[in-house]
């Protein structure tokens, strides 16, 4: 599964992304399961709000963290996220 660069990306309504105080981590919750996220994955997923496409997410994150050259990492992660059903397009 690949990300369509022209479509916006949104976090799946069938999952929940939330900060867990006890674990000091962001997690994805879904029926009978939980995935613990590292900080960068969580930052990427928080951008998946249905208003931005891939390029916009990359540029927003580059700006936010004052960095460049992270497009490949972000794309790779979003592809995993899409395959796992954590995000959706259109």
């Amino acid at each position: 599964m690949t990300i369509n660069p022209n479509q916006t990306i949104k976090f799946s309504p069938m999952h929940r992304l939330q900060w867990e105080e006890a674990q000091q981590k962001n997690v994805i919750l879904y029926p009978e399961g939980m995935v613990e996220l590292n900080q960068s994955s969580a930052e990427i997923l928080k951008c998946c709000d249905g208003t931005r496409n891939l390029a916009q997410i990359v540029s927003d994150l580059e700006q936010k963290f004052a960095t460049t050259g992270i497009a490949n990492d972000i794309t790779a992660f979003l592809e995993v996220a899409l395959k796992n059903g954590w995000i959706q397009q259109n």
Partner: protein
Amino acid sequence: MAGSNKINITPPRWLLAELTYACPLQCPYCANPIDYAKYQSELDTEDWKRVLTQARKMGAVQLGFSGGEPLTRKDLPELVKHARDLGYYSNLITSGYGLTEEKIVQLKEAGLDHIQVSIQASTQELNDHIAGTASFEHKKDVAHLVKKHGYPMVLCVVIHRENIHQMPQILEMAEELGADYLELANTQYYGWAHANRDLLLPTKAQFDQAEQIAQAFKEKVEGKMKIYYVVPDFYEDRPKACMNGWATTFLTIAPDGVALPCHSARELPGLDCPNVKDYSIEQIWNESKTFNFFRGFEWMKEPCSSCDEKEKDFGGCRCQAYLLSGDMYAADPVCSKSPNHHVIQEAIDSAKASALADNEKPLIFRNSKNSRLLS
């Protein structure tokens, strides 16, 4: 006490709230204890709220409302709302019996995250026979309504000898109903399933064939439907890592408030399971005799204590060891290294003989009358 000190105690992540033993269905594989009828008292709403609050504070995040049939509790929406306010991800584990569209909407508004509906078979006749109650058409309606109102829909089918031949139709039905998740749970032989084992345990050939069909289907629906396939450990040569290790992850609270490291643990002798009416969840989890009983590895006997796989499976299931060998400290007899491993083959042979017998004895249905009779 066995394994009490110096063990790194991890906080609970999963809370299973068995709200009630009351259930309009009579599944002969029900995981409730055989003697459930003698536990009549139920925690009240305030008790449950306190339990949810305390467990959440320790780090529990996945919450299952189960039973019995949790819908028989009038305060379910109130408990769901409390759970949502605390930040739980809450699951309703239901037979679907008594679930109306109005209730589905009400629970959604209260903050319920998903509904797991169990169906007993792919045909009305068999479903209603196994459930001991006419319920098939209603369950299908419920499944549609769950989808309609935007919940992830989890369909759960418990697999055993009476329905294993329907595997292709069960998969078709799940697809037709639009299940997002399908749990194919091969029967685990505790509680009522243990009592009915001769009638429920499939043969190896039946099991292999069903598994093949399910695996092929899994590939076909990849990305659309997730399938959780629970293997029947009788046909494995290593036991399951039961509960991810005793009191490491899972906390079950029985209807009367008894706290259990696994839902069968109250059948184990001498554990003195604590009640949430007397202690806080933190005291129960960290300090009680019961929760420390099988923590770590010190309690183990040979062959487990010197086994290099003990960190993988923790010696298997304590309840299964007790049920099948009479010794709750023994290796799970499913393990081929267990000196009691032969009891598994005996169980398989006995089930096969029962299937071939001219007059197979009838299933014992889960109801209060049978519960009193058997305990």
